C-alpha cells in the first residue's frame, strides 16, 4: 500500500463539492422544465437545517437503526480514499483496491438496508428488497467494466495476465487511460463507460431506474428506505448519498476525460470539470427520460453487464 500526500487534497475537495452535484442536477432539470429551480446550494441548506434538528426514533427500532447512517457515511468516506481523480493517484492505492471499493459501497448499501429493515415497516422492507435485487446485477457490471479497463494495454498471452491485470490498483488503471488508449481501444472504453454510467444511475437512484423526487411508496426504491430517518441522521444519509454520487462521477469522468498531462493542478481541474459535466448529463437524462417499469430494470442492468462483458471480450481479443 502506498500513500500519496498531494492527492490527499482530493478528499476535502470531495467533501466540499459533493452536495453541489445535487444542486447542478436539479438546476439542469429545472432549466429543461422551464422553471427557475432551487438554488444551487440547496443541498447544503438542507443538510445544515437537518443538523440543527433533533432526530426522532420510533420505539420499534433498535441501535441498528441509529448506527445505519453513521456506518454508511463512514464507509463512503473510506471509499473516497481509494478513488483516483483522473490520472492523479488516490491517497491510497494497492492492488485489488477496486474490489475494496466495491465492498465499501456494499457496506453502505448493507447498512442502509438493515436500518430500513429495522423499522419493521413493510414499505421499507419492499424498498430494501428492490435495492438489493438491483445491486446484485449492478455490482458485477461495475467490476467487469473496471476489469476490462485494467486489461487495456496488456498482452493477452501469459496465463497470469488476467490475474495481474485484475489486481492492478484503481489508480494504476486510471493512470493508463490516456488519449493513446482511447485511440487504440476506444470501443472498449466506450462500452465500459456506458456500463459505468448505467451503474451510476442505478446506484444513485436516478431516473430511469428510480425517481429521487417521487414519494409514492409503491414505486420508490431508495427514498422509501430512508423515510423514517430524521434530523442529523437524515443529514448524514443525504451527505453520504452526495459523496457516493461524487465517487461514481469521478470514476466515470476519469474514463471520459483522458487528460494525463502529469500536471497535478491541470489534471485535477479537468476531471472536476468533467464531474460537473456528468452531473449536467444526469440532469439531461432525468429530463428527457421516463422512469422504467420495475420489471424492465433488470433488463437495463443486464444490458450494462453485457456492455462490460463485451468490453472484456474485445480487449482480450486484441
Amino acid at each position: 500500500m502506498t500513500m500519496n500526500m498531494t492527492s490527499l487534497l482530493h478528499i476535502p475537495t470531495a467533501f466540499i463539492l459533493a452536495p453541489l452535484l445535487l444542486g447542478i442536477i436539479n438546476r439542469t432539470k429545472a432549466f429543461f422544465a422551464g422553471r427557475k429551480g432551487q438554488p444551487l446550494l440547496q443541498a447544503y441548506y438542507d443538510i445544515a437545517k437537518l443538523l440543527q434538528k433533533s432526530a426522532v426514533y420510533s420505539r420499534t427500532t433498535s441501535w441498528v437503526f441509529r448506527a445505519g447512517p453513521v456506518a454508511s457515511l463512514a464507509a463512503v468516506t473510506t471509499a473516497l480514499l481509494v478513488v483516483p481523480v483522473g490520472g492523479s493517484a488516490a491517497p491510497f492505492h494497492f492492488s485489488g483496491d477496486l474490489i475494496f471499493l466495491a465492498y465499501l459501497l456494499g457496506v453502505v448499501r448493507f447498512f442502509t438496508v438493515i436500518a430500513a429493515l429495522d423499522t419493521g415497516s413493510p414499505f421499507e422492507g419492499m424498498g430494501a428488497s428492490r435495492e438489493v435485487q438491483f445491486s446484485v446485477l449492478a455490482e458485477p457490471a461495475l467490476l467487469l467494466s473496471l476489469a476490462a479497463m485494467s486489461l487495456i494495454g496488456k498482452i493477452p498471452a501469459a496465463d497470469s495476465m488476467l490475474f495481474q491485470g485484475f489486481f492492478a490498483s484503481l489508480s494504476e488503471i486510471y493512470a493508463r487511460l490516456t488519449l493513446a488508449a482511447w485511440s487504440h481501444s476506444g470501443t472498449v472504453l466506450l462500452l465500459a463507460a456506458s456500463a459505468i454510467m448505467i451503474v451510476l444511475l442505478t446506484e444513485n437512484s436516478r431516473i430511469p431506474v428510480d425517481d429521487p423526487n417521487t414519494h409514492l411508496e409503491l414505486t420508490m426504491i431508495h427514498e422509501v428506505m430512508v423515510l423514517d430517518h430524521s434530523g442529523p441522521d437524515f443529514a448524514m444519509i443525504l451527505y453520504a448519498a452526495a459523496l457516493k454520487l461524487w465517487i461514481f462521477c469521478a470514476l466515470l469522468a476519469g474514463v471520459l476525460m483522458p487528460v494525463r498531462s502529469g500536471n497535478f493542478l491541470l489534471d485535477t481541474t479537468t476531471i472536476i470539470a468533467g464531474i460537473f459535466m456528468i452531473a449536467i448529463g444526469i440532469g439531461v437524462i432525468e429530463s428527457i427520460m421516463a422512469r422504467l417499469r420495475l420489471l424492465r430494470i433488470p433488463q437495463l442492468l443486464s444490458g450494462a453487464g453485457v456492455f462490460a462483458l463485451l468490453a472484456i471480450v474485445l480487449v482480450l481479443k486484441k
Partner: protein
Amino acid sequence: MELWIDILIVLLILTNLKLMGSSRLSACIRVVALQGILLGILPLIAGHGQIPFRVMLLSAITIAVKGMVFPWLLLRALRTSNARREMEPFIGYSTSMLLSVGLIGLAIWMGGRLPLPVPLKSPLVVPLALFTIMTGLLAIISRRKAITQVLGYLVMENGIYAFGLTLAQKEPMLIELGTLLDVFMAVFVMGITIFHINREFDHIDTDLLTTLRD
C-alpha cells in the same frame, strides 16, 4: 479503421441482444433493419486496401434490400395484422437475454477453435457471425408470431452473410446477387403468407396452426 470495425461489431452484437429483449414487433423490425444496414457497411470497412466497385455495389444493394425494403414489407404486413407485441414467448425476454449472453460465450469459444486459412482483420468477425446465426435460430424457435419468425430467419441469414463476407470473399458476383434475390423472394413470399394467415385466422400466432398433425 480497427476502431470502426470494433464499434460496428459491438453494434451488431447489441442489435441481436435488443431483438431478443424487446417485445414490440415494430421495434424488432427496426432493429433488424438497422442490423441490415450495419452489415452492408461491414464489407466497406473490413476490406483490405481500396474497395473494389463490386463490393461497393453489393453493399449498396444490401443496405437497400435489408435496411429498407424488408422492413417496409414487414411493417406493412404488421399493419394489416392486429398483432403489436410478441405476447408470452416460449422463452421470456430476460431468459432470452441471458441465453444470448451465453451464446456469445459459445460463439467466441467456437470461433477461437476454428482454424482459419486466411488471417482476418478482426478476430471477432467469426464469433459475431456465429452468434448472429444462433440468435436467429433462437428467435425462430422461441417466438410465436409469424413476423418474429421471419425476423429470426432474416437475422440468421444476416449471420451467414457476415460469415461469407469475411471468409468467402471470392464468390462470384452472380451468385451473391442470386442469393440476395432468393432471400428477398423468400421474405416477400413469407410476407404474403403472413397476410393470408392473418386474413384467414385473424391472428399470426404460428403455434396455433395445428390442424395438420398425426
